[in-house]
Every structure is written in structure tokens, then in C-alpha cells.
């Protein structure tokens, strides 16, 4: 009765990944928000306007590329027992520097994002990439991985922000929170605001929009026969 059926240990031969693969997988295949469902706090909190979401995306892009590069370049000197506190300090320091820069050069963005700039420190995506990728791979690959994952993150944030602001207010305001140097209201005169669902720019809208986008993606994957 004690016949233990040994499952054949599958030798997962690490496929030779080109740098392009490393970069590209983060954008769609391992998209932080829509596939892995990580880093939800900013995805829900700052996406009530397109610009806020886009700005947050850019900040995460800067931070993730930087932290991945730093973590990867010191990976051989840090004993693995203390690596997590070291990563936390590196990430927190770089976020603090970025926060000071945003305060100085884009004060409108800083007040729009509020506490969520500092909270990039505890964003699962940033920490996850440092631990899962940058601590094991070379500097160039890690930088590309960070940039790719962050680009995917920024894209998804912008998509959510676009739908929430457009459907919630009937227009898209540009140049108000980002220091673009001009101000432009996309579809400002179209009179669509009469038909806006104002619930979408309020907190419940964040959950609803992301939930529906996830459902659309799932149904697309199911129709293609992709197994999750």
C-alpha cells in the first residue's frame, strides 16, 4: 500500500533568454496588474485621473529600473541572510530621493499622488522584482527586466486611469498635474459630461473598472484557449 508513486522530476532547463525576452515579458505576459494581480494599491488609488495614473507609472518606471540595477550590482556582496533588510533600505532611499525631486519639480503631481509616492517603497511589484530577478541576474538584464515590468505596470495604470476619467467625467484633462507646459482638455467641448458615470471616479469605480478589465482579459484568454 505504501507504493509511493514518484512523479518524474521535471528538469526545468532554463531556456536561453535573450535580453529582448527579459524586457518584453514584463509588458504583457507577466503584466504586474492584469496577470499577476500585484501592486494593486496604486492601481486603485491614483487612477481616478489619467494624468495621475500616468505620472505614477513614470515614477514606478524610474524606481524599478534604478532599484533593479542597484540590487543586481550589489548582489554578490550582500549575505543572503540580511538581503531583505538591505533591499528595503535601498528601495526606501531611492524612493525618498525621487519624492524630493517630485516635490521640487512637479508639485501638482506630488499633491495628487500624496502618500502613494512614499508607498512605492512597499509596492509588491518593486520588491518582488528585486527578490525574484535582480538578486540572481546580471546588471543589464536586471535593468531591462525592471524597465519592462514597470512599462507594463505604467501601461495598465494608464489604461485604468483613461477609462475611469473618460467614463467618469466625459473628458480627459492634460497638463494639470503633469508639468507639460500646456493645458489641454481632450473632448472638453463634446458635452459628454452629461452622460458621465460619476461613480467611476469615486473609490468604488476603481474596483469595478479593474474587475471588468480583468474579466475581459480572462474571457479573451479563454476564447483563445490559453490556460491560466
Amino acid at each position: 500500500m505504501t507504493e509511493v508513486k514518484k512523479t518524474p522530476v521535471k528538469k526545468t532547463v532554463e531556456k536561453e533568454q535573450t535580453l529582448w525576452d527579459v524586457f518584453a515579458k514584463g509588458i504583457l505576459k507577466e503584466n504586474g496588474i492584469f496577470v499577476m494581480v500585484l501592486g494593486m494599491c496604486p492601481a486603485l488609488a491614483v487612477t481616478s485621473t489619467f494624468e495621475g495614473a500616468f505620472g505614477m507609472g513614470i515614477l514606478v518606471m524610474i524606481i524599478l529600473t534604478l532599484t533593479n540595477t542597484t540590487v543586481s550590482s550589489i548582489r554578490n556582496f550582500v549575505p543572503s541572510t540580511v538581503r531583505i533588510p538591505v533591499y528595503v533600505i535601498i528601495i526606501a532611499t531611492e524612493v525618498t530621493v525621487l519624492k524630493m525631486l517630485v516635490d521640487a519639480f512637479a508639485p501638482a503631481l506630488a499633491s495628487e499622488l500624496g502618500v502613494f509616492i512614499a508607498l512605492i517603497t512597499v509596492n509588491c511589484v518593486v520588491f518582488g522584482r528585486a527578490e525574484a530577478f535582480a538578486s540572481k541576474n546580471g546588471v543589464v538584464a536586471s535593468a531591462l527586466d525592471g524597465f519592462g515590468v514597470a512599462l507594463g505596470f505604467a501601461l495598465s495604470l494608464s489604461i485604468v486611469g483613461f477609462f475611469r476619467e473618460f467614463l467618469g467625467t466625459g473628458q480627459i484633462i492634460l497638463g494639470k498635474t503633469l508639468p507639460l507646459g500646456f493645458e489641454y482638455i481632450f473632448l472638453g467641448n463634446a458635452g459628454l459630461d452629461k452622460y458621465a458615470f460619476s461613480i467611476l471616479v469615486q473609490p468604488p469605480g476603481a474596483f469595478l473598472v479593474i474587475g471588468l478589465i480583468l474579466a475581459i482579459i480572462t474571457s479573451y484568454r479563454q476564447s483563445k484557449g490559453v490556460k491560466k
Partner: protein
Amino acid sequence: MNLLALLISAMLVNNIVLMQFLGLCSFFGVSTKMKSVVGMGLAVIVVIFLAAVITYPLYHFVLVPLNIRYIDTIAFILVIASLVQLTELVIKRFSQSLYKALGVYLPLIATNCAVLGVALTNVANPQSYLEALTFALGSGLGFAFIIITFTAIRMRLDSQPVPKALKGMPIALVSAGLMAMAFMGLAGII
């Protein structure tokens, strides 16, 4: 009476999960089994409160006099990480059963943005120590309350005929959205 209003506001009206979107990773990640969720909720209440007990004086009596306010994020994340370790040790020493219940969830809390978020909000607003503690307690209670109710909803959803595309995460998000809508109705009570 003011403190009571603050407590209720932090717990229900401005709930950290549904209204301020803090701690969502653990909110969606853990909320599948009732037993683990209760443990997680308790651990979060303890850690948020203790973090407020330490970070508020740290900010006002160390960082502000030394004029190094800008390192608050780094200082707080260190405090929270060590606090989580310390809580783990203390609980292990005094209550084995509680340790078994909370064990795996304690380390996760260090990266729960609710804890850092509440600590940073507390020092960003001009308020007294007592108010900061009340806010922290209310936020922790609110987190535990929401994550427990949400888990109950998710457990029910598991046995319901949900459309195929909405199964799992999408329906969880939509139900959280409906919960948030219900909580918006509480906005008038304070």
C-alpha cells in the same frame, strides 16, 4: 466624544481598504480562508497600533528637532520591520497557540502598505498623540472588519454560478466595488 468620532471615521467612513486603497495586496491575497483571515486581521491591528505608538514620538522628538524629516519613509519602514520581528518573538514566547495562528502572516505585514500608510498619514496631519493612536486603532479595526466580511462574501461566491470570465479575481474586485459603494453611504454619519 471627539475621539470616538475619529475612531468611527477611521474604521468605517474612511475605511483604509475600501476608501483609501491601503493594504490591498493582503486584502485580495489572503481573503480565501476564514481562519487565516482572522489571524491576519488581529496581527494587523496589533502592528498598526504599535507602529503608531513608536513612529509618532520618533517623528516629533527625533526627526523634527534634527531637521531630517525627509527620511521619515526610511525610518518608519525600519521601525515597522523590526516591530514585526519583535511582535513575532514576544508572541512566540508568551502564547504558542496565538503564534501558530498568526505565524505565517506576521512577516507579510512588514510589506503591507496599510501599516506604513497609516504611520505616514499620522505624522502628515497635525494631531495630538492620543488622536494619532485612535486613528491607528480605528484603521486596524477597519482593516480587520473589512477583510473578514469580504472573506465571508468570497466564500459564498465560490459556491455560486459565477460567469466563467468573472470567476476568481474579477468577481472579487466587483464585489469589493459594491462593498465600497455601500460604505460610501456611511459618509454622512460623522
